[in-house]
């Protein structure tokens, strides 16, 4: 067992992808930063000095403390506090957790939806294909943020009062639905190429169920591009979540994400409490940049033509 694992690992290590990774300092740096973000977010309850989501722990007398190294700072709040006395560092950890959770969940949702629709459109063709692609065209003409805002607004109208408790799922739905088109288009294209290949025709003659054919033969061939789209989409999803929260229609104010903190900090632009905006903003940019760099590298690495 251990041997087999070791073999698999060494095979992975020697693969093209890994080789390219080991020879791209940017990719390695980005991966390291991204892993650090994921780590901090996953371990937020344990590594954060405070729990900013527990209202009973907040104390107004701690509000708007500057970072620890500035006069008036408090070592227990390394990056200072916001107007409600929340520790900025802890809130960044917890906020990054929300961002990543929303991002990954929304991307999963998009991927499943997009890949399924793309496979069906490509494999079945005809009217179903035309219909799906027409819908895709229409949706593609609306930016994701607009679609997400619309879904959010409808959710508010349908669930008055319950919106806050469902905010997370509304965000996932809104961002997820707004992003499926790219997957569907890519998968459809590849499927149409694959389905006319001889091995698929042969499998069909053997009476294998179309679903099985799609899953076994078509899907593996489209995974590469899907992975690239998904990586970059996580970055977009995180930005969209931050934007919605910044616009005040994302997560509830008692459970701030990075976008919420930036919005709060906006009110203290003139009074000199810059840390409320700056640190969450930096965290957001660094996280998104790392994911984008990884996505760029992945695209180049998986696309031999560009090498």
């Amino acid at each position, binding site marked *: 067992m251990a041997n087999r694992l070791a073999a698999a690992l060494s095979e992975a290590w020697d693969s093209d992808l890994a080789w390219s990774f080991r020879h791209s300092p940017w990719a390695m740096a980005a991966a390291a930063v991204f892993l650090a973000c994921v780590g901090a977010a996953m371990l937020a309850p344990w590594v954060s000095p405070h729990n900013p989501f527990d209202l009973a722990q907040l104390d107004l*007398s701690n509000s708007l403390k500057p970072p620890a190294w500035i006069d008036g700072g408090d070592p227990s709040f390394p990056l200072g506090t916001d107007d409600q*006395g929340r520790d900025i560092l802890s809130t960044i950890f917890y906020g990054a957790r929300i961002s990543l959770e929303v991002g990954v969940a929304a991307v999963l949702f998009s991927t499943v939806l997009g890949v399924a629709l793309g496979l069906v459109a490509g494999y079945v063709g005809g009217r179903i294909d035309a219909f799906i692609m027409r819908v895709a065209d229409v949706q593609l003409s609306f930016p994701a943020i607009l679609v997400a805002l619309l879904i959010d607004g409808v959710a508010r109208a349908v669930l008055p*009062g319950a919106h806050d408790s469902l905010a997370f799922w509304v965000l996932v739905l809104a961002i997820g639905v707004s992003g499926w088109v790219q997957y569907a288009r890519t998968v459809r294209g590849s499927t149409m190429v694959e389905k006319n290949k001889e091995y698929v025709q042969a499998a069909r003659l053997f009476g294998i169920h179309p679903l099985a054919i799609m899953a076994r033969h078509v899907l593996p061939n489209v995974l590469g591009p899907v992975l690239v789209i998904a990586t970059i989409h996580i970055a977009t999803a995180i930005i969209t979540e931050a934007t919605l929260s910044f616009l005040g229609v994302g997560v509830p104010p008692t459970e701030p994400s990075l976008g919420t903190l930036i919005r709060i900090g906006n009110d203290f632009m*003139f*009074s000199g409490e810059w840390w409320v905006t700056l640190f969450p903003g930096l965290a957001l940019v660094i996280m998104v940049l790392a994911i984008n760099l990884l996505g760029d590298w992945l695209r180049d690495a998986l696309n031999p033509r560009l090498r």
Partner: protein
Amino acid sequence: MRKGVSLCISALFATMLVAAPGYASTFRWASQGDILTFDPYAQNESFNNTFNSYVYESLVQYDKKFAVVPQLAVKWEQIAPTQWRFHLRPNVKFQEGEPFTADDVVFSIHRQLSKRSMTKSYLVGVVDAKKVDDLTVDLITDGPAPVLLRQLTDVRIMSKSWCEKHNVVEVQDYVAKEETYAVSHANGTGPYILKSREPDVKTVMEANPHWWGKPEGNVTEIVYTPIKSAATRTAALLSGEVDFVLDPPPQDLPKLKSDPNIKVVEGTESRTVFIGMDQKRDELLYSNVKGKNPFKDLRVRQALNMAVDREAIKRTLMRGQSIPTGELITPEVYGYDPTIKVPPFSVAKAKALLKEAGYAKGFEVTLDCPNDRYINDALICQALTSMWAKIGLKVKLDAMPKAQYFAKINKLDTSLYMLGWAVATFDAQDALINLVHTRDGKGSGEYNDGSYSNPKMDALIEKIKGETDVPKRLALIHDALRMHAQDVAHVMLHQQIIPWAMRKNIAVTHSADNRLRMWWVHVN
């Protein structure tokens, strides 16, 4: 001094150059929320009343010391204990040309007393208005009505023929968000004419060239912009895009005071900000407690009251710009009882009280809150959620702009809500009638959105309304205020200190009712 004079001269010169014919000065100002409606009786919110007072006038008005002086009535006398006679100003015309007569006054008073009116409290005690002749009106009261004249400062006069012509004899149903002609059009006798109204964007008024009065100030055009974001409001004043900000964010006051082009006029406001609780329903609308209403239990209300750290709010969110209080009214208002103390802050006692009441584990409830009405309103509410979390309550916050907010809480669609009250009459009776008296649909309890109801309190208030003996009335008011505090009818938070911030070239008169009286504003 010489520099000042030369500046004045050059400013004068510049003005003359810009506006060759006539003499025009535009006054651009901002605060966080927008005007709700121009139907003067559809809402009783002091900011909205301020704006309506530019267009619509009343029989009487305040001078700078809040003494009652003539406006549309030139003189008045009490001809019987329940009959007041008002002699109207002759030769006054509405802005659209209709002559102002006794018919308009009678019509306006009836309109203001009608079912949908939200300003009936200013006519408390008035049962009818009767025309004597074209320029004389009698008001009939049900008793002596000791503060009638002060109430009348907020009874605005509309044109009868205009209302009939535009089908607005009925008051706008604000709660249902009804849209009538009178909501965005106005036709009064006042010094300013409503020129344009873009909700959320801009409202423009121009001086009324045919106004009967002589303006003390020199503003010929008013441009009002609502700016919700605190930083944006500060930025707009610093860059000179607006001349005046009614509610500068407390955190930006040091920056504003240090700017050579800005001056800040300090002053307190006759407003208290407080939290109301639904004390009527048998089960709260927004809570997980089923089958009973925790706010009916005095101990729960006391617990909420004691768990609020008013000093912390003052020190941090308000940056010193508030005066913590436990009393319904402020010292500026007649009837203030200095013996009522700020409720003590004690988490332990509050917890014990909750336990006694059977809520040892706390409960869930939603706090409704405006986010563009009072200074840092939504932030204070957010702080309250964490203060109450410390005694085990799980409070969800629902913050929204005042235009939606008032429609919601006036419908009593709330369990826990924030409200502020500035007493327009400067007499405690107004606050007691609006906020504490049982809601009766006839003018009492119009803003008692938690439906607090205590027969003893109602009896006291009824006595206050008719008592003409001054010391006796004061004692009654004190009794009522103390009963309000003991009952924790509201969780009182603080009195706002509202400095007004403006460009150096603006001269205004700060008013404790936080109303900017445009006819006293000078743009130099």
